[in-house]
């Protein structure tokens, strides 16, 4: 059989496969889910006397950023961001971003403290999502980029990275700990500074910098607070791409 004839026979099925692959929804191909939870209600009237227009910008930017990294990202706020819904989603999240009120909260049942954040729930009475709640639901599954945009999320005693199975170590060079990176703020921070940090971080990632390099660039913003601080744990030279470990060009 001639070479040209082979191609004629193979052409239609190859074309059909190509069309099918292109048309298959990302979810059916094992899409990497990312959830973006943002507390809007707490920081606007009637819960807070002052209107906060920074928070919607953070939500838009985070969702777009996770999308650029290859995640199927969805944002949730109001009644869609509740403790129950967040915990129902978290086992399927590869990426996670949350912006809310955060603290090292007392857990009366365990008589100890855990890092946590408040749900939105669409009203002014907002339950705490403790790190232990997330940890129980995720049961050690792999996380990618986790950005906890709350106060105290990256304090030295934070329990939140462990909820996402991210060890609190800084891996650099040939030393890697997988395709994971945790970012959070230290102590109390102003929203305007957090927004500057986050936009710089997302922009650096979009430009192809590693997660660690993006963090370093983000730390050099024009922050109003002299004591602005954030911290990270994970693999510095990972590029932030969604999914399991594949290659790391600069992990040498």
């Amino acid at each position, binding site marked *: 059989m001639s070479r040209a004839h082979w191609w004629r026979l193979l052409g239609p099925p190859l074309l059909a496969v190509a069309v099918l692959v292109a048309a298959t929804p990302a979810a059916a191909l094992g899409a990497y889910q990312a959830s973006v939870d943002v507390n809007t209600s707490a*920081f606007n009237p009637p819960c*807070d*006397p002052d209107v906060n227009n920074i928070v919607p910008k953070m939500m838009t930017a985070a969702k777009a950023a996770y999308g650029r990294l290859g995640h199927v990202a969805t944002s949730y706020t109001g009644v869609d961001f509740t403790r129950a819904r967040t915990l129902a989603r978290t086992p399927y999240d590869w990426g996670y971003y949350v912006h809310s009120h955060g603290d090292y909260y007392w857990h009366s049942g365990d008589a100890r403290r855990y890092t946590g954040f408040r749900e939105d729930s669409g009203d002014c009475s907002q339950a705490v999502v403790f790190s232990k709640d997330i940890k129980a639901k995720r049961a050690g599954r792999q996380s990618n980029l986790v950005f906890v945009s709350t106060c105290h999320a990256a304090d030295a005693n934070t329990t939140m990275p462990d909820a996402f199975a991210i060890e609190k170590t800084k891996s650099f060079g040939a030393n890697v700990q997988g395709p994971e990176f945790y970012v959070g703020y230290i102590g109390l921070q102003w929203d*305007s500074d957090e927004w500057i940090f986050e936009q710089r971080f997302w922009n650096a990632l979009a430009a192809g910098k590693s997660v660690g*390099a993006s963090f*370093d660039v983000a730390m050099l913003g024009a922050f109003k607070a002299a004591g602005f*601080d954030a911290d990270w744990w994970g693999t510095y030279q990972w590029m932030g791409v969604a999914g399991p470990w594949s290659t790391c060009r600069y992990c040498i």
Partner: protein
Amino acid sequence: MIPTILRRRLTLGGLAVAALVAIGASTSQGADPFVAGGPSARHVELPTAGADAAKARGRAVMAALGVAGVRETVERLDDRFDHRTYDEVTSFDSRGRPVAISRLDLDGSVGMAVALGWHPVGGGAVDGPGAAARATAAARAAGLAPRGDPEVHASAGAGGWVVSWPRFVGDVLVRGDGLRILLFADGGFHGLTRTERPLADVPVRILDRDEALGLAERALATRAGSRAGDLSVAAVELAWLAPNGRANGTMLDAPDGTLRLAWVVRFEATGPLADTVRSVEVWLDAGAGHSLGGDVVE
């Protein structure tokens, strides 16, 4: 039923309105072209001679700061978030890893420099005064001349210390401006940023403190009803700042590129409000008293 001629006129009028709305939208985007969700920097053409000069300058700056690269790349970026155009030079080591980034203003001066990577915390850590001395030396190596005693803060994100020389105009702080240097715990250079944004004219008449406080309290009271009582005044001060809102109450996606003199009224939350909000700042134009935006600690 609408007569045909009237319908045509309404249609034409509608088109005209739509065109005006579109022009208005375009104009407002021109004033604030950064839109949340998109990257903030876009490429600008850089001539070959300029590229070579920037790479040489970037290499020299990073070498002076103790980071040796063997190869550089450069791109000119229009940063709509920072309202700055700069040449970003990335330095690579002999194994092809990026080891440093420098951002040079178009006159070659250093706007930002960062040594990529991490120094594990070990022995030989420097203390606060030691960090100040190391930062001063780094600033001079980069061609900058900081004056006065710096502020020194321990910083986990920096890897050790943040040493800063904030900018003042008279006695008034220019928020976010000045020179800031990040050091690893061992005193090694980590990052540098220098910011000096344009300032608007000082208002002819500046509201007094009580006028500003009254305006801020009234603004909160009308928005919040009973919960306004959960906020108590913590500070009222003048500052130069980048507005994040307009006088009409709409907000900017990026902080404004020109700083304005403002009354900053800070409130601390008490009662049930403190479950979710810690502090609130109201920013008022120091002359006209209108809103320049605000801020919150959640």
